[in-house]
């Protein structure tokens, strides 16, 4: 969501002073208080999602006239559950094309900024040049600048160039908006790599280009993965940038299509809205569940590194 972009920015501060404590001794036993609070929070967090999931399989009349929880005491309604809503939402509400569009926007908008930022981060971490500190502080200060400032001027330029609504136009916008965060995270990570290794590569006659691709990039995989997951989720879930630079139409991503073709249509009904909603969430959720470990490790690398 909107706020997470900057959240991650400060999520990887360079707190080098903190000591890592080994948790050898088992922490205190969980009391009833801890269990109840955690259980309650988890229950509150997951119930709305369960509601969406169950509703998305219910036929129109069931979904729009009775609450999803009635399923638990009307076993007869179980036999009416089906994938029909998914088929309709996918084929008739334009989510099929929107899904492809979102991939087409999110994949380059994830990989290109990583490459661009990694080069800059390499320069900031391993090369000496006048103005280095100043230029990096500029990146740090740009972290908090809201991307709203770009919309009016860039939209004008895009209209003049007649590229508004095209995929490269959105990629470039996402590259620009994600850049300061990417440089910040990657540079902070690269700064923790052993300098001696890079020095010895240089002595062995490796060029910066080779050192970058063969040594630094492979060693930075945790930070690269964390940023990649983050940026992918951010772009996939983005609504604002998509509305402004793509808008509804042939190239609309899934958030815009879901909002305009289903949620915004009074006649769509909860059964289709929920099915569409689930289609829009399934890929980021899979990415998230499988990559959570890397994501968390990358996020907390700065905060807990000894």
């Amino acid at each position, binding site marked *: *969501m909107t*706020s997470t972009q900057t*959240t991650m920015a*400060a*999520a990887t*501060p360079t*707190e*080098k002073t*903190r*000591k*890592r*404590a080994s948790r050898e001794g088992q*922490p205190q036993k969980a009391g009833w208080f*801890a269990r109840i609070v*955690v259980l309650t929070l988890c229950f509150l*967090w997951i119930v*709305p*999602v369960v509601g*969406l999931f169950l509703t998305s399989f219910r036929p129109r009349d069931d979904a729009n*006239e*009775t*609450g999803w929880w009635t399923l638990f005491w009307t076993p007869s309604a179980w036999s009416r559950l089906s994938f029909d809503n998914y088929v309709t939402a996918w084929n008739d509400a334009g989510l*099929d*094309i929107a899904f492809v*569009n979102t991939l087409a926007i999110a994949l*380059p908008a994830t990989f*290109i900024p990583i490459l*661009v*930022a990694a*080069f*800059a981060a390499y*320069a900031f971490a391993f090369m000496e*040049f006048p103005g*280095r500190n100043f*230029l990096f*502080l500029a990146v740090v200060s740009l*972290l908090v600048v*809201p*991307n*709203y400032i*770009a919309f*009016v*001027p860039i939209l*004008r330029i895009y209209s003049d160039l007649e590229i508004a609504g095209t995929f490269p136009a959105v990629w470039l*916008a996402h590259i*620009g908006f994600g*850049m300061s965060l990417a440089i910040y995270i990657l540079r902070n990570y690269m700064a923790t790599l052993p300098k001696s290794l890079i020095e010895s590569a240089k002595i062995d006659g490796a060029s*910066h280009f080779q050192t970058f691709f063969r040594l630094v990039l492979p060693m930075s995989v945790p930070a690269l993965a964390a940023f990649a997951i983050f940026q992918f989720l951010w772009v996939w*879930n983005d*609504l*604002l940038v998509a509305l402004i630079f793509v808008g509804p139409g042939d190239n609309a991503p899934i958030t815009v299509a*879901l909002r305009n073709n289903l*949620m915004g249509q009074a006649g769509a009904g909860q059964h289709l809205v929920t099915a569409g*909603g689930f289609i*829009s*969430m399934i890929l*980021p959720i899979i990415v998230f569940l499988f990559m959570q470990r890397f994501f*968390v490790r990358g*996020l907390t690398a700065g*905060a807990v590194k000894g």
Partner: protein
Amino acid sequence: MVLKILNTLITVGVGILAALVLYWLLNKLAELLPGPWEDRIKPYLYILPAYAALVFYLVYPAVQTVVFSFANPTSTAWVGWDNYTKLLQSENFQDTLFNTLLWMIVVPVVVVALGLAMAVLADRLNPRWESTSKTIIFLPMAISAVGAGVVWGLVYDYRPEGREQIGLQNAIVTALGFDPVAWLQLDQLHINSFFLMIMLMWAQVGFSMVLLSAAVKGVPEDTLEAARIDGANERDIFFRVVVPQIWGTVLTVYVTTLIGVMKIFDIVYVMTNGGFNTNVVGNEFFNQLFSNFNNGAAAAIVVMLMLATVPIMFYQVRNFRREEMMG
């Protein structure tokens, strides 16, 4: 459809390839330079594309937006401070500012508090339950605001009295014998804004939990042990030993959530589009730009937003410099 996929694949491939070729060319360019100049120029060539993106998408537009904010809706004539005075004098915009302020006051504090509570309490469960509960709390991070709108639509849904409720909240209320409530239209005491805030908290607490959890686990065991030997109870240990040691992370989470809240747009846009006095600055910007076609007012709103983030910018830079010097 097949054509569309094929087309998409080619565009994606070309885009990524173009980025790679760019760097290969820049590197070749540097290698053409004589002797010492190669090393002198190379760093700048490496950061050039990144800086080009930053300058084109953030620095230049910032200047241009300030300029537009003093011009009329179509940016064709100067109007001085009119955009600002009109906005600030309009009652609607004052309400919008007040709502945004409410979001800024409530959401970051709750996000930090709940995240910290989860971090500390889940830490005491056995490892399997700890990771399961954390995944559940963290999961909404992967869900878009539009998706969250669908999810929470089923919680806040309202049907007039007499019809069966399909919204969870109204089902509970009517089961208890009360009348159903149109939650998102309830603007007394900004209650509807609070319901929208809950959606953002739902999305953000996991993030706060993950960072704070790492910090809590990083608190050295011997400081806790020493406090226990001195006879401190669990509450004292938490507030006097743990909290001071993780304070830096608490501030980090607070500040970054705050920045996000200031820019909040999608939740409000999807749920109410600012109706029933739930408008916030981000949504007002969007409506000025795309409903009123008023570039001037939209730009003025952004400039105000930008000014509000300046203190945070100074804080971040100062923080960074201090940590770098210590490191």
